């Protein structure tokens, strides 16, 4: 504890924060301290509780218990406005800007104490010096809708600063930025910190964390498994291990190790996962010599000038479950969409059962024997106003022919639906009830059941158990496994690492739209996977040895390769 005594008191401290949502403990006694001029990274897998914690600090969510202190005094935020008044501003992932308004109007929007008549030129010139200092250039009159994501980010930052925020909370600020834009943002963050602003930011990208963060808090399943640890005291690999739920080997060095929660106590933790893994029969190898059922060759997908997927190749053999691990938002959605024909690749080829279907419609993919369970249960795989029969027959309606050409046999439709509902034990109140009457788990069973009822040769599943209770999760996993056993090739994409590890015969790690690593089942190393997911990858193209050197000196972790997108410039480097 003597270490802490020398450090100035925290500007913002979160003490023993608990947030309980119905059925979920999103944050469990989390502590976090943020000092003036500090950049603090909050790290964790999807659903680890990072967002909830941030929302507490920004007044969006009220903690169930625990104390928030600003400048040492306990505060209670009833609304984001209260937090704002206390000098805390949050920049959301989607920025929350009014697209039609100009940059300036967005910046001043909602500020208190504006004169009734807006002298826009004067207002702009008042903000200008701040921007100049931070190296931000903005055209005040442009409508926000015409800006790139990076520019919008800047507008959101300036807006926060215009409200005189001393504490800035950034939710995955680089998630939607190109690497150039990310570099610039990190630079801006450094300058802000030099000005004395405290920054708390969420990220999955370890290289950028290494490059800017002074301290790090790692969360896993609602708990802080490393609390406000000085960045120099923890290696990126350790962070990656902690993130994916492995005990930090070197964390023993840290004096606060005692405060780490007891891992083994987590019921659905890796221990349980290990047990499952043991029960999974190895890939039967029944199609070893057979042609792959699904094949992607150098697929690149470009959306709005950004490569969402670049040069992705994979091939899926009969009876095999191929898992794709990765932090969500790294191209998974695009990958499954391309595999199922929902999106067309910019280049490369997609073939199902040796038939090139690259520019064909989802129906052709379906007819070739590919079934796809989308992650988006309410917007894609089903829709709220559909009834259960509609949902069940969403893909098979063409075969339920009525007596006249073009008609649907309604009785056959409800019969088909009933069969799925029964086979997959969906608890329901009739085939004509709306899908909204089903719980998430039951809807997922129905969707999975629908896809499996078409006896797929290839099954693409994305986040199949997200938001499901334990029993439903079990059921879904068992069905996927059983389907694979019949010779179906399964592509399982999930940001839940445990799930991927439990089910896959083979595993690929996706990061920024590329496969950065591959493992056969017996080679899988959880720590290694975690590191790859977080972008710690050797041999990423474009990495030069000189950049590596610069990176190391800053990161203090000699064994980690740098992330190419991160600026090699030293911290607080001179203004350009």
């Amino acid at each position, binding site marked *: 504890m003597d270490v802490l005594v020398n450090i100035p008191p925290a500007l913002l401290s979160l003490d023993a924060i608990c947030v309980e949502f119905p059925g979920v403990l999103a944050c469990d006694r989390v502590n976090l301290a943020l000092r003036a001029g500090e950049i603090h990274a909050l790290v964790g897998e999807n659903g680890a509780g990072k967002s909830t914690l941030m929302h507490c600090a920004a007044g969006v969510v009220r903690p169930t218990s625990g104390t928030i202190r600003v400048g040492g005094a306990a505060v209670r935020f009833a609304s984001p406005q209260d937090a704002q008044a206390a000098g805390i501003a949050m920049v959301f992932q989607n920025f929350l800007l009014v697209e039609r308004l100009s940059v300036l109007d967005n910046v001043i929007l909602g500020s208190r104490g504006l004169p009734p008549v807006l002298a826009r030129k004067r207002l702009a010139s008042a903000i200008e010096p701040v921007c100049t200092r931070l190296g931000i250039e903005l055209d005040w009159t442009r409508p926000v809708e015409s800006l790139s994501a990076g520019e919008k980010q800047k507008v959101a930052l300036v807006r926060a600063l215009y409200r005189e925020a001393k504490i800035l909370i950034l939710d995955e600020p680089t998630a939607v930025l190109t690497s150039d834009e990310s570099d610039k943002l990190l630079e801006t963050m450094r300058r802000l910190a030099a000005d004395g602003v405290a920054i708390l930011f969420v990220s999955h990208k370890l290289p950028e964390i290494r490059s800017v963060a002074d301290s790090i808090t790692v969360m896993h399943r609602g708990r802080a498994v490393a609390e406000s640890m000085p960045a120099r005291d923890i290696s990126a690999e350790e962070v990656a291990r902690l993130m994916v739920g492995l005990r930090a080997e070197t964390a023993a060095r840290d004096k606060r190790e005692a405060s780490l929660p007891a891992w083994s106590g987590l019921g659905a933790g890796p221990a349980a996962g290990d047990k499952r893994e043991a029960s999974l029969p190895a890939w039967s190898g029944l199609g070893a010599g057979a042609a792959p059922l699904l094949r992607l060759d150098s697929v690149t997908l470009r959306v709005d000038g950004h490569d969402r997927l670049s040069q992705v190749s994979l091939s899926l053999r009969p009876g095999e479950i191929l898992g794709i691990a990765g932090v969500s938002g790294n191209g998974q959605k695009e990958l499954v969409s391309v595999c*199922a024909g*929902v999106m067309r690749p910019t280049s490369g080829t997609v073939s199902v059962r040796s038939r090139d279907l690259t520019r064909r*419609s*989802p*129906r*052709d*993919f*379906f*007819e070739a024997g590919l079934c*796809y369970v*989308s992650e*988006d249960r309410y*917007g*894609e*795989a*089903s*829709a*709220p*106003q*559909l009834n259960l029969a*509609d949902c069940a*027959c*969403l*893909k098979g*309606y*063409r075969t339920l022919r*009525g007596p006249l050409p*073009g*008609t*649907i046999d*309604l009785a056959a439709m409800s019969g088909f639906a009933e069969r799925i509902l029964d086979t997959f034990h969906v608890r329901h109140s009739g085939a004509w009830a*709306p899908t*909204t009457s089903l719980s998430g788990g039951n809807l997922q069973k129905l969707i999975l059941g629908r896809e499996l009822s078409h006896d797929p040769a290839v099954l693409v599943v994305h986040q199949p158990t997200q938001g499901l209770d334990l029993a439903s999760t079990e059921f879904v996993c068992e069905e996927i496994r059983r389907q694979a056993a019949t010779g179906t090739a399964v592509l399982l994409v999930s940001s839940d690492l445990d799930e991927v590890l439990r089910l896959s015969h083979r595993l690929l790690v996706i990061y920024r739209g590329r496969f950065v690593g591959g493992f056969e089942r017996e080679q899988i190393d959880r720590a290694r996977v975690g590191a790859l997911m977080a972008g710690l990858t050797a041999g990423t193209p474009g990495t030069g040895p000189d950049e590596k050197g610069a990176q190391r000196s800053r990161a203090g972790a000699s064994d980690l390769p740098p992330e190419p997108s991160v600026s090699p410039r030293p911290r607080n480097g001179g203004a350009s």
Partner: protein
Amino acid sequence: MRLRVEPRLVPSRLVRFGAPVTGLLAGLLLSAGMLELFGISSPRALAAIVQSGFAGGLYAISDTLTVATPLILCGLACALAFKARLWNVGAEGQLFLGAWAATGVAIALLPEGTPGWLAIPAMAAAGFAAGAAWGAVPGALKARFGTSEILTSLMLVYVAAHWNNYFIYSAWSDRGFQMTRLFPRAFWLPRVADLASIWPGAAGLTLHVGFFLALLLAAAFWFVMFRTRFGFELKVSGISEKTAHYAGMPVKRNIVLVLVLSGGLAGLAGACEVAGVVHRLQENFLPGYGFTAILVAWLARLNPAAIVLVSFLLSGLLVGAREVQPSGIAMMLQGIVLTCVVAADFFSSNRIRRVP
């Protein structure tokens, strides 16, 4: 204590039907108040509206159903597009073009002596085809370039109006007058009044067989929507285009097809108006049925049976309101009643709760 608006998850049957009725009553009450304000006896005025719109015997009903015919057809046209969440607001233009094409067939294409059984279906088909072509333009633009069909279909209304004017005043002008020549008698849609020789009471009943066609198409609409694969695809597309695409439905083809059919229905309405009512093409013979139909489709919640009912009630209001003069007051009454009904509609899908 505060009030909060929240959506009703499953609106009860009572609310669904009760709300518009309550709205109607509230609208009538408000209208009565306004009438009194203008120094008009409200009971007498309202009675006159009901009298000549609905309850004034055969004539009133005939007049109302005659006006309802294009409203039903255009209402179906709008409902079909709205079902698929395509905002075809250009039924008016498709109506114009349908009237134009039917006229073209009648006066420029077919020889004078063509028998009615051949000419009338040909005119109807031409009306449908022209409306469909006019609907296909926004459809193709939407499917190909993602252009907003609201703008394109609306703009095409004005193009259609000028297109028609060119033919009315110039190409097909009758002796330089602002109308085409009269269609040959055999090309007129049969009217109830045609029975006057057998049943004198039929004289002056202008209801034509177009009304039958409208009812038939309302039934067909129901069948297509609820019993066919195409209808199923539209339902899914209307709820979530993403889901439809995911399910392998031909979303883009359906966009074009829906707007083609929607335009065709409106075009048919135009053909019925020229063949059944005016018997020639002339300027401003349509009081905006294509736009009123948008309202009809909404109030009827896109249900074909309700479209027939709403069209009937609205036409009755339109016809009956002529009894209140000057017309400004009648238009105000229509406005008040419709606003109240639409406002009441809000409460059938939302409710207001007190929150402490």
